C-alpha cells in the first residue's frame, strides 16, 4: 500500500559496509527470544538510546523516530524499555563498540542503536539490534531511505524488524486502521469514515458527516475499503479507492439493504449480506464480472461473513437456532456447520490472518465479550468483558485484536481498544474523538 506514502522508498539494504560490527546474523536464534504463544508475563527489557543524528537536519527526526520505536515495542506488552536515566554507557556514534558490561549491569537484554542522516532531501535511518548477554548482534544492521514525511513509517519498520527478530513472528506496526469517527449526542450521532496509523497517528477523514456510515473493511492489498453508507437513502455497500477517495456503490441496481461486506483473500470478490422482505442472507459478488451468487437461503438472519485466509470457507453468524450462533460453510454456500457451542449469543466472526483462530463477539448475561476459538469451535477463550464490546479485527500477524468498546448510559461513547489473543495488554487506542468499527490493514508494502 503505497497510496498514502508514495514517497517512501522503503529500501532495505543490509549494511555490510557500515563498519566492523555489521556481522551477518547467526543461524541459531540464541537466548534472546520471546515465544508469543507462551504468554509473556515478564516483558523483555530493552535499551534504546536516542538514535544519533549525524547531521543537523536530522536532529528532530532522530528524536521522533526513537520515541515511536520505543512506543511500538513497549505497547506490545512483550518488551519493557529500561529508561535512559539508568543507562551507564552513552552511545555517541553508531559505529562505536558496544560496552556489553554497562548494559548487562542494568539487565538490558536487547540493545537497539541507530542513526538518522539527512541526505539530499531524504532521511536515511540505520539501526542495529544486539543480544546483550550473548554479546552479539541479532541479525544484520539495516538501512532505510525515505522522505522526511515518512519518518513514522520508518520508525514502525525498525520496530517491526526488532519484533520479528526477537519473536520470530512478523510485526504489525507499519499498518493502518480504518474506523468510524463519531461526534454529537447519542441520539443524533454524526459518523465519518476515517483512517489512521495503527497507533492513532495521522488521522484523515474519508467522508463528511452527512451520511450515516458503518463498519469499513480493508482489501487484502490495503488499497480499497468496503463500508456501508446511507447516502442513497437506504443502507448500501460502497467501495472506496483510498488513493483517489473515489467511491461507488458495490452494485448499481440493488433496491434492498446491503451491508456487512468483506473482501475475499484474493481481493477479487466481496461477500456481504443483502436483505429482502425482512430476510437477510449472504451473497458473493465477483467484482470483475458482476456475477452475484446467493450463498445462504433460509428465513433466518445470516450475516457477518468472513473468509478463511485460503479462500475456501466462510464463517458467518445465523439465528436459525433461535439465537445468534457461528457457522462455517464452503465458499460455494450452503447451510454450514455450527461451531459455537457455549453460552450466549455469538456474532461478528472474523477469521484470523494466520487461519488458526476465529475472533467473535459473545453476548451473555447482559455483558459483551471479545473472544477467540479454534475453527472447529474448540478452545474458546473470552478475552474481554464490558457493557458493550463488539466487532473484533485482527492485527496483520494474528496476535492482537482491536475492537469497539462502548460505555453505558446517556453519555455512553464508543472507543477503540486492543487486546492480545492471550487476553493481556488491554489498551485504549488513541483517537481524536469517539471512534468505532476499527478494521486493521495488512502490513503496508
Amino acid at each position: 500500500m503505497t497510496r498514502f506514502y508514495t514517497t517512501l522508498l522503503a529500501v532495505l539494504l543490509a549494511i555490510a559496509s557500515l563498519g566492523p560490527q555489521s556481522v551477518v546474523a547467526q543461524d541459531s536464534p540464541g537466548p534472546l527470544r520471546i515465544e508469543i504463544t507462551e504468554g509473556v508475563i515478564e516483558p523483555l527489557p530493552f535499551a534504546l538510546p536516542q538514535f544519533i543524528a549525524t547531521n543537523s537536519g536530522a536532529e528532530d527526526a532522530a528524536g521522533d523516530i526513537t520515541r515511536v520505536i520505543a512506543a511500538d515495542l513497549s505497547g506490545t506488552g512483550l518488551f519493557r524499555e529500561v529508561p535512559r536515566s539508568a543507562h551507564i554507557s552513552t552511545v555517541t556514534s553508531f559505529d562505536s563498540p558496544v560496552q556489553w558490561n554497562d548494559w548487562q549491569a542494568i539487565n538490558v537484554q536487547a540493545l537497539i542503536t541507530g542513526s538518522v542522516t539527512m541526505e539530499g532531501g531524504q532521511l536515511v535511518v540505520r539501526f542495529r539490534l544486539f543480544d546483550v548477554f550473548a554479546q552479539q548482534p541479532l541479525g544484520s544492521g539495516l538501512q532505510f531511505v525515505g522522505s522526511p514525511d515518512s519518518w513514522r513509517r520508518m520508525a514502525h519498520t525498525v520496530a517491526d524488524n526488532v519484533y520479528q527478530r526477537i519473536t520470530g513472528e512478523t510485526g504489525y506496526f507499519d499498518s493502518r486502521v480504518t474506523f468510524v469517527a463519531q461526534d454529537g449526542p447519542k441520539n443524533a450521532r454524526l459518523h465519518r469514515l476515517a483512517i489512521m496509523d495503527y497507533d492513532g497517528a495521522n488521522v484523515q477523514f474519508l467522508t463528511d458527516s452527512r451520511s450515516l456510515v458503518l463498519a469499513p473493511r480493508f482489501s487484502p492489498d490495503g488499497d480499497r475499503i468496503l463500508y456501508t453508507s446511507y447516502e442513497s437513502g437506504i443502507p448500501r455497500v460502497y467501495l472506496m479507492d483510498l488513493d483517489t477517495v473515489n467511491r461507488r456503490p458495490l452494485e448499481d441496481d440493488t433496491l434492498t439493504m446491503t451491508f456487512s461486506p468483506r473482501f475475499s483473500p484474493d481481493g477479487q470478490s466481496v461477500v456481504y449480506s443483502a436483505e429482502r422482505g425482512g430476510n437477510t442472507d449472504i451473497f458473493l459478488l465477483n467484482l470483475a464480472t458482476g456475477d452475484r451468487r446467493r450463498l445462504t437461503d433460509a428465513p433466518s438472519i445470516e450475516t457477518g461473513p468472513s473468509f478463511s485466509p485460503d479462500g475456501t470457507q466462510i464463517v458467518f453468524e445465523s439465528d436459525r437456532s433461535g439465537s445468534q450462533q457461528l457457522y462455517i460453510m464452503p465458499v460455494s454456500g450452503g447451510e454450514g456447520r455450527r461451531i459455537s457451542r457455549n453460552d450466549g449469543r455469538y456474532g461478528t466472526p472474523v477469521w484470523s490472518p494466520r487461519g488458526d483462530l476465529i475472533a467473535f463477539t459473545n453476548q451473555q448475561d447482559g455483558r459483551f465479550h471479545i473472544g477467540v476459538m479454534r475453527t472447529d469451535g474448540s478452545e474458546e477463550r473470552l478475552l474481554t468483558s464490558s457493557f458493550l464490546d463488539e466487532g473484533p479485527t485482527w492485527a496483520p500477524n494474528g496476535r492482537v485484536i482491536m475492537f469497539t468498546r462502548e460505555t453505558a448510559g446517556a453519555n455512553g461513547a464508543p472507543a477503540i481498544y486492543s487486546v492480545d489473543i492471550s487476553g493481556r495488554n488491554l489498551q485504549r487506542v488513541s483517537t481524536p474523538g469517539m471512534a468505532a468499527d476499527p478494521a486493521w490493514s495488512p502490513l503496508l508494502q
Partner: protein
Amino acid sequence: MKHLAKLTLLVAVLGLSACGGNNFLGGGGMGAGAGGAGAGAAGDPNSVAYFNETVGDRVLFEVDQSTLTDQARATLDDQADWLLRNMEYNVLIEGHADEQGTRDYNLALGARRAAAVEAYLMSRGITDARLSTISYGKERPLAICSEESCYRQNRRAVTVLQAGGAGA
C-alpha cells in the same frame, strides 16, 4: 505526500457543504418525513400530527423479536384505516433495535421489524406501492439511557408519512 493534501482539501470542501444540514431528527422519523407541508393541527384528523400523535406512528417490540404484539396490531389497524382515508401519503417504515446487540445483527433485526409492519399494513389493504422500509439497526436510538425503560422505546418500527401518494 501529494495525496494527503488532496484528501484534506476534498474533505474540507465536503464538510462545508454539509454544514447546517445534519439534523437527523426531523419529525418522528429519521428520514425525510412529511413534517412540513400538510402537517396541519393535531385536531385535524387528516393531519400528519394527528397520525403521529393520536393514531400513533410507532409500534414497539420485545427483546430480539419482530413479532407484532396485540397492542402493535391495534395501532397498525388504526394506521391502515388512516392511510386508506388519506391516499395522498406514502409511508416509509423505519425498523430500529436497542443497543443490546451487535451492529450487523441489529441492522437485520430492524429490517425484520420493518418488514413485519409492512406485511401487516399490506394485509390491511395498503398497497405495496405505497410502502417502503429501511433499517437503522441500533444507530438511531430515541431514548439514550442504558436501561430497559429506554431500550423498550428504541425497539420500534416507525411509520413515517411521505407526501406523494396516489391522491397528491
